[in-house]
């Protein structure tokens, strides 16, 4: 068979075929190296934390994690997503521990057996913010968000909603339900949805001279760049509670449960609580520790 073949014409060297062969070997080596590295990492020294954007955008996590790492030797890799997605990552077993702020969704998560235990960590509050120079709805100084929302509705003052089913968006919808009105972007020209995170939504509200609902931490951290001020605060209904939940290892055996528990206990310990309470951003302390260790 081979003997019958005509001799191949020499190609300019290195020919494209040569280049391709080199690329193939390189790719194969890279894949094998990647596999080797990832298999070697199996006894993990880090936890995967799924959390909400507010914990990241306020700067709290980047401040806390180095302390946790030096105290325990355990690294933290966190991904900041919406509360709903954070809990979903936990129930898939993709995260070892979640830090979220949506009590009703957390209770459902626990009831489904996905969480090992649930400890309160800290709180902040939601505030209604509005334009710095004007107050078209006349809500400045109120301490009741429901009345404020009612006035925004009757005056048709521009309001920016997150519109992304985040913890903040869920609270906003709850307040509208207290008002007894469900604004929609199709019927209400004064009601707009940003579909983005808190900091981006604040920026949009600032640009459009509008009201919006925010957690005070994110607002205070970014307030220097915003033409917005707090109009409504200290409404007891607007307190925002954060909890830490290690994922249940009997449902997801791949969970690094020791690390996750260590993280939950550290956050609620005296050390973690005082660090949270002392955290300052933009000249303010955005989080109030209210931790309680409820984990075994």
């Amino acid at each position: 068979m081979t003997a019958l073949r005509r001799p191949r014409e020499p190609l300019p060297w290195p020919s494209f075929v040569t280049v391709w062969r080199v690329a193939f070997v390189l790719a194969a080596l890279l894949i094998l190296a990647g596999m080797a590295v990832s298999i070697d990492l199996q006894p993990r020294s880090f936890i995967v934390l799924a959390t909400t954007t507010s914990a990241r955008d306020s700067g709290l996590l980047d401040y806390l994690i180095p302390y946790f790492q030096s105290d325990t030797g355990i690294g933290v890799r966190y991904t900041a997503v919406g509360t709903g997605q954070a809990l979903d990552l936990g129930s898939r077993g993709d995260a070892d521990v979640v830090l979220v702020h949506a009590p009703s969704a957390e209770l459902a998560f626990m009831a489904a057996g996905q969480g090992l235990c649930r400890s309160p960590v800290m709180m902040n509050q939601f505030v209604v913010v509005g334009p710095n120079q004007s107050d078209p709805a006349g809500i400045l100084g109120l301490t009741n968000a429901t009345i404020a929302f009612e006035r925004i509705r009757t005056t048709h003052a521009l309001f920016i909603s997150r519109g992304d089913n985040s913890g903040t968006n869920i609270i906003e919808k709850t307040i509208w339900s207290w008002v007894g009105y469900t604004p929609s972007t199709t019927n209400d020209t004064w009601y707009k949805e940003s579909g983005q995170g808190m900091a981006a939504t604040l920026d949009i509200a600032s640009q459009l001279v509008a009201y919006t609902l925010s957690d005070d931490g994110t607002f205070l951290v970014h307030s220097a760049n915003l033409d917005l001020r707090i109009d409504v605060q200290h409404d007891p209904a607007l307190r925002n509670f954060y909890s830490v939940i290690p994922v249940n290892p009997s449902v997801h055996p791949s969970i690094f449960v020791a690390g996750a528990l260590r993280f939950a206990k550290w956050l609620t310990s005296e050390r973690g609580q005082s660090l949270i309470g002392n955290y300052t951003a933009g000249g303010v302390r955005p989080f109030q520790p209210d931790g309680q260790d409820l984990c075994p």
Partner: protein
Amino acid sequence: MTDFSEILQIVGLSILVSGTSTLIGSVVGVPLGVLVALRKFRGRNFVRTVAFTFYGFPPVLAGLLVFLILSRGGPLGFLGFLFTPIGMILAQSVIVMPIVMGITISAMMTVEKRLHDTSLALGANERQWRTTALHDARVGVFTAVMVGFGRAISEVGTVLIVGGNIRGQTRVLTTAIVLEISQAHYLEATIFGIILFVIAFAVFAFLQRLQAKGVV
């Protein structure tokens, strides 16, 4: 906010992830493209159409699919590749491969038409003809690889979903830009954008130089 070593790390990871996925996508996509272009078989047009359709495949959708596969609940969850650079490379390879394959098909088919009869008339066998065709189409194939890299390095959907934008682990230039914009840090976002542009420019300039020197 972000210090210099962290920026270097982000840049390095961007090049590593996009480069490796381009390599994998090309190593698979080029031979497949050659095969589809030079072999006549049933359903060839269908395969071509599918490959071209994937040009418009939304990266977020590719990200979602790879996420569902790599998630602990998914078929490859036991590997633990979610939220790792390896997962990001796999996801981007899924995007790059059809692009490289599609452009390779186009490049080979233009060459094939005029070359086939001539080569065989001059006494070349099938294998020689294929090698010659690939050699003649090398500029087009090279373009395919460059377009694939361009797509990978500028892509944000899959790396965000599969990588999780974890600081120091899976944060790349594009996800860093999205993060900075979401926090209204437009200056930082612009700086990352300029870095991304400079990298793309440097890579393409280097590749074009290779091509001009006749290495490829």
